[in-house]
């Protein structure tokens, strides 16, 4: 029973803050709402017994990305600045598309009879996760783990060359 209350609490938070994130006029607030969503999601992960994942979610997402976002907001906007909202037409059309898409997707997904839960279960404690992460056999994830490092390296280099100020950079600024 507890778990259900917890679930509905988290679900409610996720939904409300998701919607608030995309509708609030204050940018900084949106970032905070996003943080709430991410934290609630981490709560869901805890519920599902993926503790490691939840931890990663909190550190990387909530701790890393949101902070990055907030910094960049502070860098580019005034705190009190209110974001412009989309025009009526754009808003209505987007809402229509989104509602239609959500409805269709939900109907389709809910009508699908998912297979029964498989019987055997692998442990999802940190130890087995760690083992899987460096295993290069079936169900091992060494390769993605390596590749993601390449991606992060490349992204870092990319971010640096884009964001780095140059001597010539100011010349053409409007």
């Amino acid at each position, binding site marked *: *029973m507890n*778990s259900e209350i917890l*679930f509905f609490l988290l*679900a409610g938070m996720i939904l409300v803050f*998701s919607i608030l*994130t*995309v509708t609030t006029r204050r*940018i900084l607030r949106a*970032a905070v709402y996003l943080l709430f*969503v*991410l934290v609630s*999601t981490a709560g*869901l992960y805890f*519920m*599902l*017994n*993926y503790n490691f*994942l939840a931890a*990663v*979610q909190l550190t*990387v*997402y909530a701790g*890393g*990305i949101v902070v990055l*976002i907030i910094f*960049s907001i502070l*860098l*580019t906007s005034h705190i009190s600045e209110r*974001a412009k*909202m*989309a025009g009526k037409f*754009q*808003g209505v059309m*987007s809402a229509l*598309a*989104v509602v239609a898409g*959500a409805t269709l*997707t*939900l109907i389709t997904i*809910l009508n699908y009879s*998912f*297979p*029964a*839960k498989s*019987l*055997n*279960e*692998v442990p*999802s404690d940190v130890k087995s*996760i760690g083992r*899987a992460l460096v295993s290069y056999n079936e169900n091992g*994830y060494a390769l993605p783990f390596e590749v*993601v490092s390449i*991606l992060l390296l490349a*992204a870092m280099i*990319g*971010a640096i060359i*884009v*964001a780095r100020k140059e001597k010539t*950079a100011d010349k053409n600024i409007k």
Partner: protein
Amino acid sequence: MTGTIPLQYFLIISTLMFFSGIFGFLTRKNLITMLMSIELILNSVNINFVAFNRYLYPDNLHGHFFTLIVIAVAAAEAAVAIAIIINIYRNFRSIEVDKVDEMKF
């Protein structure tokens, strides 16, 4: 720990989150808020993966690791995106999405 909550509830949450993310992408006027919408989308996908993994296929950790990787990718994406947005800010003195339409037609 999930008790009697059916899988579908998770899916509903994730789907709604996904589409609110899309809604945000389509309507927010600030590049950074658009980026935030993207994070919502990715997050919803993660919920899906995790829920499937736990509910249907506990015999493997695919969903789990998929989520893990997606989080990492999201971080990389956010990094580059923010770098570019800052660059945009330098160039346009604004991060309003409607100002970024120099090239069209």
